[in-house]
């Protein structure tokens, strides 16, 4: 892996880190992955998520650029008066242009996390250089299916515990009966998490998803179940108005993970599945044959009745997972 600090865009305004795999392990024809800061969290990402992702991608031969949007993290501010979202879109566009001009990259995958989804979505819809887009905690609308499952949250002991901690009045924090909650409750009085975002209208989203699929742009959406507006696997189909997912789209729902992937295991899981999804698109894009070992496994699965396309995708994903874990297969 080779990591280089880069500065690009007019006035070298934008700063980031270009992470390339060793030349002998580079996956020919693979797109370059772009990630950028999430709100005021700089380009390393929440709990270093983007650094872990970049290094996992490099292990499977994929390059990435993680950078900061104008005025945030390590990047300088723009001097024009563009609105925030448009500014973000322009910055991501400038990152792609920089990689095209100076590093010969032609195809890109964007990974938007939380508020980063806004720019990723906007660019992926209109820029043909984007062959794939990953939305982590992307847009979600509450549906009848969501509300039908909503009461299940009252069965969660963790929710009751948190509610109790929030409601403990300051005079009662000395009561030993409350155990550890009395100490932890003090923190809730200082500040609280706010993840409020504006979504495009549902009709616009449906049109955009359709347009991306028609162009062959691969889409991966990862939703977490903790404190979110997404509470079951098929909710995407419900708000996107689809009866089934198009071949270009993959949805992953992690019911026990939280919005910022606080736990190491949750983060590792999302890194792994995102890297595997990126790499799955690469050989198809360059029309490369599967490696012989994988061919044998696919053949065996087909012989046992698995559809060829599914067997190929499954074997390839298993291979990538093993590679990410450093297992020798």
């Amino acid at each position, binding site marked *: 892996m080779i990591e280089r600090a880069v500065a690009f865009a007019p006035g070298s305004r934008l700063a980031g880190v270009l992470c390339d795999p060793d030349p002998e392990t580079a996956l020919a024809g693979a797109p370059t992955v772009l990630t950028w800061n999430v709100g005021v969290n700089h380009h390393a990402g929440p709990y270093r998520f983007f650094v872990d992702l970049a290094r996992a991608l490099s292990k499977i031969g994929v390059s990435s650029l993680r950078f900061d949007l104008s005025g945030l993290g390590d990047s300088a501010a723009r001097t024009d008066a563009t609105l925030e979202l448009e500014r973000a879109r322009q910055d991501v566009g400038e990152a792609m242009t920089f990689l095209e001009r100076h590093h010969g990259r032609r195809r890109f995958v964007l990974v938007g996390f939380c508020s980063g989804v806004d720019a990723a979505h906007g660019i992926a819809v209109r820029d043909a250089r984007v062959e794939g887009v990953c939305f982590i905690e992307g847009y979600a609308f509450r549906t009848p299916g969501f509300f039908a499952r909503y009461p299940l949250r009252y069965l969660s002991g963790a929710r009751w515990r*948190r509610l109790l901690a929030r409601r403990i009045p300051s005079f009662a924090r000395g009561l030993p009966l409350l155990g550890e909650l009395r100490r932890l409750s003090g923190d809730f009085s200082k500040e609280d998490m706010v993840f409020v975002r504006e979504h495009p209208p549902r009709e616009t989203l449906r049109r955009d998803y359709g347009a991306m699929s028609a162009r062959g742009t691969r889409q991966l959406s990862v939703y977490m179940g903790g404190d979110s507006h997404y509470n079951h696997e098929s909710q995407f189909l419900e708000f996107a108005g689809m009866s089934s997912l198009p071949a270009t789209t993959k949805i992953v729902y992690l019911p026990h993970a939280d919005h910022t992937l606080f736990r190491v295991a949750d983060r590792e899981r999302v890194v792994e599945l995102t890297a595997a999804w990126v790499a799955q698109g690469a050989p198809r894009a360059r029309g490369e044959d599967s490696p012989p070992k994988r061919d044998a496994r696919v053949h065996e699965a087909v012989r046992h009745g698995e559809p060829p396309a599914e067997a190929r995708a499954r074997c390839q994903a298993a291979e990538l997972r093993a590679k990410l874990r450093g297992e020798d297969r």
Partner: protein
Amino acid sequence: MQPVFFGSSAQPLYGVLTPATARPRRKTGVLLLYPGVQEYSRAHWAFRTLAGALAARGFCALRFDYRGVGDSAGDPDSTTVDACVDDACVAASELRDAGAVDQVAIIGMRLGAAVGAHACERLPFVDRVFLWNPVVDGRAYVRELEHMDRAMRLRLLHPLEHREDELAGFRFPSHVRRSLERVDLCSGSAPLARGVEVFAEPGSSESAALREAASRRGHQVVTHTIHDSGGPPPFPDASLLAQEAIASLVARMDEVAP
């Protein structure tokens, strides 16, 4: 702002050099030492602001990520206190070369303050160390991190019990824990050279303990009171602004450093 990788090619460190934007340029460069892994992201914006404010007073500043943190090589398993001190020494030399300065002053926040206090022992060209809400007692610091971890778990609806080797969002193996617990800036062997100044909240017990420890050794530690000083955070994802603390640190550096 100039992002750079420096240090050994096997373990490169990522940093951002902020050259002086005002004239005359100072002879002193300022090395900024982030808090530890768990509090690093929270301090990023404040450190960027601090570097910019120092540059506007003619100082060249370097802020960098310890190994296993941010963009530097390695993972948090490698981020022991000793490793951070080694990295701080490498960064100080880098600042001298890249910033073309004769002397280096250090501003370290929380665990970065303890790192700075130890690093200056090995760096003859460092003549001033500002400890910003310092971690003085490693055991108390680990307890604070454990509290933060449990508060986050409560808030995020995770089980309160957690893996032994994980703390506040990051891997936390036993050797890293031990290295943190050994931090004790008040012990007889701790470095408290001249030029050490403490910036802490009113009534800070750390500040008082350091002053007392220094006086036992015949030194004097100058203390300053700040209010939004970046003390133990309730949650690691709450970004720190610390405008008042930054203004105090910059004004003092402007006053005392050549």
